[in-house]
């Protein structure tokens, strides 16, 4: 009843091609941004900010990265964690060489390093597809992981073998290191994620995104229409790895504070892949939904018994959490194989004509 586009006429192509052509959507996104930028930092406690919101945002960004490659371009990758690692280590090296330069500059720059590495490992994608490409990206995952463990230069010969995030400030406010407040870290992270999401949305709605989807849906037709397969696929690998790299740098600098190579193991690649599949392939909003579901659901389940006053041992809660999350993922995938984003679309469609059936 409230979500209806009747009476909203578009009088120009620009209005018709807007990313949110319906007024209610524009209001919705403004409300979400208001909540994210003002209400959560003001009312959210330390735990909520640093253990729920920050990780979810980091994973959302990584999921957007993987979604560009897998959802939009149709190239499956299991190297996400490795590309995140490249971003994290690159950022660490860059900021230890040039401590005076703003850390945000290095976070973005480390994305470019990751983009280069990603494009390099994307080269086989011209010749191989599907499962074989998965194996090729798996090679990237294991090779890069080996580098993180075996090359002490990457961690400045730190005996612990871990990245230890130094203290850096932005406009005089400490945003990394032990003294950074969760609110400051959250706001910086949110700004980066919001900006990069906007860029991703612009890309996928334009010429570049159409070329990606054309390659995904019918590569032969795309090629015969003059879309260069190699360029398009490598661009997808580069942009995807850029997002993953930035997500990795943000993960270590704004969330973990220090990181060992074990952070970037293949389990994390799988985790991001699940987020993308459950959220919805080829959907940016799905990336957020997938990340939120996979990351927040276990936290909610873990806290639920205590909140309700149920006397369950914490070990049992842990086990129950695994069972319930697993079951829910299966239920979601059976209910809507195209992910939460499609569920959301269907819901909006229903809302449009509500309370009438059609």
């Amino acid at each position, binding site marked *: 009843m409230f979500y209806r586009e009747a009476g909203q006429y578009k009088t120009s192509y*620009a209005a018709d091609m807007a990313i949110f052509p319906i007024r209610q959507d524009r209001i919705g996104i403004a409300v979400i941004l208001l909540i994210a930028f003002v209400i959560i930092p003001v009312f959210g406690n330390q735990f909520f900010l640093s253990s729920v919101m920050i990780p979810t945002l980091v994973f959302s960004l990584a999921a957007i990265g993987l979604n560009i490659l897998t959802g939009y371009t149709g190239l499956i990758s299991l190297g996400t964690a490795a590309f995140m690692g490249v971003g994290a280590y690159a950022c660490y090296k860059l900021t230890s060489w040039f401590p005076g330069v703003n850390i945000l500059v290095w976070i973005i720059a480390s994305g470019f390093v990751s983009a280069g590495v990603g494009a390099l490992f994307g080269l086989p994608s011209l010749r191989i597809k599907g499962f074989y490409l998965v194996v090729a990206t798996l090679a990237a995952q294991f090779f890069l992981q080996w580098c993180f463990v075996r090359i002490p230069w990457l961690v400045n010969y730190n005996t612990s073998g871990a990245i230890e995030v130094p203290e850096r400030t932005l406009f005089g406010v400490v945003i990394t290191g032990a003294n950074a407040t969760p609110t400051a870290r959250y706001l910086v992270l949110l700004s980066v994620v919001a900006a990069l999401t906007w860029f991703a949305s*612009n890309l996928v709605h334009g010429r570049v995104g159409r070329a990606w989807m054309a390659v995904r849906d*019918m590569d032969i037709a795309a*090629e*015969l229409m*003059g879309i260069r397969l190699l360029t398009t696929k490598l661009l997808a690998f580069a942009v995807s790895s850029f997002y993953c790299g930035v997500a990795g740098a943000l993960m270590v600098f704004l969330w973990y504070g220090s990181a060992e190579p074990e952070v970037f193991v293949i389990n994390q690649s799988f985790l991001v892949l699940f987020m993308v599949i459950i959220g919805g392939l080829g959907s940016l909003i799905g990336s957020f939904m997938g990340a939120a579901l996979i990351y927040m659901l276990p936290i909610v389940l873990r806290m639920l018994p205590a909140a309700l006053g149920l006397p369950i041992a914490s070990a049992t809660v842990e086990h129950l959490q695994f069972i319930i999350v697993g079951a829910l993922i299966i239920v979601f995938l059976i209910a809507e194989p195209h992910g939460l984003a499609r569920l959301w679309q269907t819901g909006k469609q229903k809302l449009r004509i509500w309370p009438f059936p059609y």
Partner: protein
Amino acid sequence: MRAPGGKDGLVAGDVLLAVDNVSLSFGGVKAITEVSFDIRKGEIRAIIGPNGAGKTSMLNVINGFYHPQQGRITYKGATRQKMRPYVAASQGISRTFQNVALFKGMSTLDNIMAGRTLKMQGSFFWQLFRHGPAMREEIEHRRKVEEIIDFLEIQAIRKTPVGKLPYGLQKRVELGRALAMEPDLLLLDEPMAGMNLEEKEDMSRFILDVNNQYGTTIALIEHDIGVVMDLSDRIVVLEYGRKIADGTPDQVKSDQKVIDAYLGVSH
């Protein structure tokens, strides 16, 4: 012939594309054997023949998807041993496919917009912002695409994902996508396969209109002999990868070899 002189300096009736003595084989299987023919600017050229005669292979050779082992292809005056898909596309050869090869996850609008990728050369930087030059380019091409949508009478399905469209409309969208490239040579691989009479009539009308209004040269493969005889200016007949006849519909119709190929001969 109908078309006026184009930007390539050719006038109607000049040879736009010539296939000279082309042979193509896959391992031991000979798909095409020493076939030569030409396509003149502004005409509708049909390629017919029984199943497996090498018609689709011929189109694939013309737009560079297959590389012939022998022979030469002359397009717009430049002679090559083989075409490359990108070169073919950027020099104005576009095509549709026998089994609809649309981008299924995208809307009708996006499919046709994707057909204009080659014409959109705006920088990646502005694409990031979807403002300024990128948006202007997008709107300019949207206008062109809307002209095609009007021309093909598919306004109502503009925003529908093409995977959900009925077959006949999918074929029409595919024609639209090929037209979006503003081709000089349009290759249609069985544009009317699996259509009912009404849909065939519509499609024939569109093909004739494309040829008339835009002066586009068309090469088409079709099994409906009635349609082929009515539409085309000249016809090539292939059988078992060899050319058995070439000429106007009337010449081809009365050619004994063609009659034998289609009706069989008593032994």
